């Protein structure tokens, strides 16, 4: 679709909201307001927004443990999302899921997953269901480079190719699985090349360039919606922060991190749309401020929200309840 002023502003806002959400998440954690762990997607904003901007509201996504950005791109309510991150009763999962499991089934977000690769078999099944339901919906299934090494990936790709499900598999290759460097066993081209062997197109792209991500994903989404089956896309990108709070960054150099920071997906997109005169410096700054304000509001909402009542502990294990 053509990049209008409105869309350009919308994408920029979403990317800044993701960045702001992650920065707030880190602060909340550092100040002891959150226990547990979290996985920040700072540096991967273009992959999330570029991919999900191709969907209709009625379409689906399945995320992964580094999924805050995916939720926001899918249109999550920032308050309910932050409330869930805080483990509050009015969060998306009533405080049961937290950072790693934020989901909004009715909103088409089938959830993040704590098991690496765990969402891929689910994606095949969602695809089988979508085919049967004949409403021309599609699913974007996100996973990391680490997930690509799991048996779940192989079995899921085979089944997806076999049943020609309307699912676009998107690998966010941020170069590492915790400390394990993807290049030790594959790179984005190598991974994308497997698509053909699994019976679907495979393509890798610059995951820090929102427009190039959007272009390849749009093609795959259109194909899937037209009943032409699945596709495998690899967004080549990088996470700026450590894997999680336990990460001491022993496995990579500051030079490498800086080099990728110099390729900030948000600034890159800003430049493009400013050059194209789709937005002014001032408007862009306002959007940035706006997004940080939105997140600050979400933080206040979350912190003011109630804890789940202990008596409700066993609710939701079985249906009905």
């Amino acid at each position, binding site marked *: 679709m053509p990049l209008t002023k409105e869309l350009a502003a919308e994408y920029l806002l979403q990317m800044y909201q993701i960045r702001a959400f992650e920065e707030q998440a880190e602060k909340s954690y550092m100040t002891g307001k959150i226990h547990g762990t979290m996985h920040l997607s700072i540096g991967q904003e273009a992959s999330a927004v570029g991919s999900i901007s191709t969907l209709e509201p009625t379409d689906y996504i399945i995320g992964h443990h580094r999924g805050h950005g995916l939720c926001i791109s899918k249109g999550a309510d920032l308050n309910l999302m932050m409330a869930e991150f805080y483990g509050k009763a009015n969060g998306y999962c009533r405080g049961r899921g937290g950072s790693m499991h934020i989901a909004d089934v009715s909103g088409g977000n089938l959830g993040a997953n704590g098991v690496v690769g765990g969402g891929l078999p689910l994606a095949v099944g*969602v695809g089988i269901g*979508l085919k049967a339901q004949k409403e021309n919906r599609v699913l974007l299934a996100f996973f990391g480079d680490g997930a690509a090494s799991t048996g779940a990936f192989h079995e899921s790709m085979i*089944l997806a190719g076999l049943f020609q499900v309307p699912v676009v598999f998107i690998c966010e290759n941020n170069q590492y699985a915790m400390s394990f460097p993807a290049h030790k066993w594959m790179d984005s081209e190598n991974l994308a090349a497997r698509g053909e062997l699994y019976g679907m197109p495979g393509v890798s792209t610059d995951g820090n360039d929102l427009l190039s991500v959007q272009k390849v994903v749009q093609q795959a989404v259109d194909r899937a919606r037209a009943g032409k089956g699945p596709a495998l896309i690899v967004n080549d990108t990088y996470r700026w922060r450590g894997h999680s709070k336990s990460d001491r960054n022993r496995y990579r150099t500051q030079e490498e991190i800086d080099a990728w920071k110099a390729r900030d997906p948000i600034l890159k997109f800003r430049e493009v749309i400013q050059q194209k005169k789709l937005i002014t410096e001032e408007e862009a700054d306002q959007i940035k401020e706006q997004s940080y304000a939105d997140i600050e509001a979400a933080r206040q909402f979350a912190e003011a929200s109630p804890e789940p009542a202990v008596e409700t502990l066993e609710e939701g294990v079985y249906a009905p309840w």
Partner: protein
Amino acid sequence: MVREITYLEAVREAMTQEMERDERVFLIGEDVGEYGGAFQVSYGMLEQFGPDRILDTPITELGLTGAATGAALIGMRPIAEIMFMDFMTLASEQLVNQAAKLRFMFGGNATVPMVLRTPAGSGTGAAEHHSQSFENWFVHVPGLKVVMPTTPYDVKGLLIESIRDDNPVVFIEHKLLYKTKGEVPEEPYTIPLGKADIKREGSDLTIVATSVMVKKSLEAADQLAQEGIEVEVVDPRTLRPLDTETIVQSVKKTGKVLIVHEAVKTGGFGGELAAVIAESEAFGYLEAPILRLAGCEVPIPYNRELEYHSVPQVENIIEKARAIVQLKL
């Protein structure tokens, strides 16, 4: 008189009638189509329902189990078949971490209505990798329901109920029961999950047995009756949720209990049964220790004799039951 069909036919009839009634129901598994399933359970269903509802997969236990889970998550009602229970080990991640937990993890805002069927058990000479029973693994997982039927009648009613249940149900069949016959009404009917069935009434001893061991316990009971020992045989039918009430009442009545299952004794479901009884009001009525008769502490060997002796047989049940009743322990 009601028509008789086999346990295997009852499985097929339940699946078929539900698929005719509800188009959200489909079957997915290895060789479930043209081949008809390794045990011919789904034979003929491909012809009736076509490849869009009878999905043949390559060898992908983890993938197909997750596929069923994902389909259920958006409103389908899949039945997945794992060809042998031994391969549930490969499926367990998606079953335990995804199917069982998605609803709770998402704050109750998701529903995962699916059935995972699999045949367990030894006695076919299939050796270590095709003979296991470890139902207690899944009894240990909140979010799952576990059904283990014994008769063709129970199979049909419990499987239809399981398909209509809004939760993931692990439905464990037994290879040696597939060919057994029993009376089964032609029209669809349901049996509630969580209701035990007293397969035989008796006053001297309660035997709580599962799956093929119910059949063996009933044979043992008939022979013991000739010695004047009246055994009550309780078949939980559903292992999770468990009908504790029926079991406890029976033990209060008889004062003596023997637990019988095929799975290896240590760490098995018999431990759960013993604990449930030992912590219940039946404790005060016990006239003898709570005994378990279960599989030996070995993988199932190939040799016919060794295989036979690695799980409880009728004569073992008789001997153990007699010992308890006569308090010769």
